[in-house]
């Protein structure tokens, strides 16, 4: 991260106050969004290393994220025999920043993973999760699908959380869970035999998956989709996860500066308003990517 001189910081503050940021955007305007699905091949006998059931490559300005979803058969937890399992992890590649080499990105990756888990997975009991965990069950109490969602930050220019949530939503829309045929002859205490089909896939319904909108407070104004320069000037940032119905699914506040409660409520309502446009933009991009994939 390059430092900024006082003059440049002053210019950035002035731009945000006057509603013209350094690249001409308004405060509540996103950068150009570009979405590609299916970037990691589906199950392939020859490719032993890299496989995914669903994947996406999302560019938000200069920030690039690759998200992949892998599904494996596993045993459900004893406390929740009727629910599958989902785990989300984020990794920051050293190609994004030299400081991400080795263990340099541990703190940031952990913070992003936890924020995404809170927003998408709901509570410990699986209640309120954006992904319907009951749909992941194969044989109750015995066999379920384990979803491993991985996000990779390839290029970092601010607003990683929003881009990650968008990439995960797109990757889930691209995910196909293989159809499983359970042999009926299994006894109740034995492991049932399952036959994983190579042909038929069930698509995920991602209409209820929320997106995360991060509002960065610089001076007295909030901006959406901050670049890394603008993020270095923030006093605090509030990330709100909103779903299609305008309901709030998660909330994270970062930054040391304190915020008045009325300010937080205002930021939440602004985030709700912005999220509707972002969700519709993302949906149209997903549809376009799917149409292109079918050609």
């Amino acid at each position, binding site marked *: 991260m*390059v*430092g*900024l*001189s*006082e*003059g*440049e*910081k*002053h*210019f950035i*503050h*002035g*731009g945000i*106050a*006057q509603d*013209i*940021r*350094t*690249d*001409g*955007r*308004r405060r509540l*305007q996103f950068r*150009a969004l*570009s979405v590609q699905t299916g970037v990691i091949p589906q199950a392939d006998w020859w490719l032993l290393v890299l496989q995914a059931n669903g994947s996406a490559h999302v*560019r938000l*300005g*200069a920030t690039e994220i690759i998200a992949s979803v892998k599904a494996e058969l596993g045993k459900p937890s004893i406390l929740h025999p009727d629910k599958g399992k989902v785990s989300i992890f984020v990794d920051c590649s050293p190609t994004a920043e030299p400081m991400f080499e080795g263990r340099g990105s541990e703190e940031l990756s952990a913070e992003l993973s936890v924020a995404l888990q809170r927003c998408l997975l709901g509570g410990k009991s699986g209640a309120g999760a954006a992904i319907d965990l009951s749909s992941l069950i194969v044989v109750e109490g015995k066999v379920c699908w384990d979803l491993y969602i991985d996000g990779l930050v390839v*290029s970092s*220019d601010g607003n990683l959380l929003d881009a990650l949530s968008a990439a995960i939503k797109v990757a889930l829309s691209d995910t196909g869970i293989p159809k499983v045929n359970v042999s009926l002859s299994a006894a109740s205490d034995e492991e049932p035999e399952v036959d994983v089909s190579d042909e038929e896939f069930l698509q995920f319904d991602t209409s209820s998956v929320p997106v995360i909108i991060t509002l960065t407070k610089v*001076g007295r104004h909030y901006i959406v989709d901050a670049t890394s320069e603008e993020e270095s000037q923030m006093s605090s940032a509030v990330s709100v996860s909103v779903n299609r119905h305008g309901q709030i699914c998660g909330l994270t506040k970062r930054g040391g500066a304190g915020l008045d409660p009325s300010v937080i409520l205002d930021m939440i309502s602004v985030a709700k308003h912005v999220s509707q446009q972002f969700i519709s933009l993302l949906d149209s991009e997903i549809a376009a990517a799917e149409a292109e994939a079918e050609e």
Partner: protein
Amino acid sequence: MKDRHLSLNQTQRVRLEAALHELQSLAPAAASAAAVTVADTIPVNQEDNILKGHGTSDQDGEVVATLCGVVERVNKLVYVRTLRARYKPEVGDIIVGRVIEIAPKRWRLEINFSQDAVLMLSSMNLPDGIQRRRTAVDELNMRSIFEENDVICAEVRGFQHDGSLHLQARSEKYGKLERGQLLMVPPYLVKRKKQHFHHLEQYNVDLILGCNGFIWVGEHVVVGEKTKPTGGQQRFSTEAENFTPLETRKHICRLANAVRVLSALGFTLTVELIIETMEASVSSNAEINDMLGAEFYVQTAEREAKRRADLLRKKNGAR
């Protein structure tokens, strides 16, 4: 600068390819010099005693390229010049750099060169303007002139015997740059010209094209006010009166976006081209941010192809 990826629809892609193809055909024949990639053989007359320069190596008696670039020949020397290399300084170049360290009696600047450039305290005018020996007090007050992360405009004074680069900022037009934004483009896009400082009166904007690829676009500062020591944070209170006026800011952002688009297309940056691109965006009523979009990108390529074709036609017609 990070690469930008644009999603072009089908018509835009076709138009862009047509424009780039036309530009390629208009390029003078010498420009299509042998471009090589790694492991390409360089055609060389074996009888001459060829000196193998940078980017080449001897493989089974043949001269093979080890870099991707253009083959250059100077008398008996054959070497490969890369295109996106680091900046190669020459004495007298105007550069824009960022202070990364304050060392005894000097500042170290980052200028996209293989080493940090050095600006000696003695190569810098003192705030009071008097010509005198630098004392120990001056050395302790270096931070009041330039701090870490400040953006500075200076001139290349020369190379030291150990290869490090020395700068000087003695004139009034050099010094700290404030109230604007710094853009980084590949250095090969900025050619050496007579003028690198451009004061665009109609926009009240200063445009400085550093030869090292750092380009400064900022509010106009009257020459002579640059080296005033800052009184700490007082000048930069976040009061509305102190901000750049809105009209000037719009011009600064438009110029910056014009530079971004032109560098993404790989066109040589000249003031005329930047201003022309900016005026085209104003006349087509494009939003400032739309200048970074796909449509403006394609339009800029088409406009440049047309301009070069017209220039060539005029040259041929004049003969």
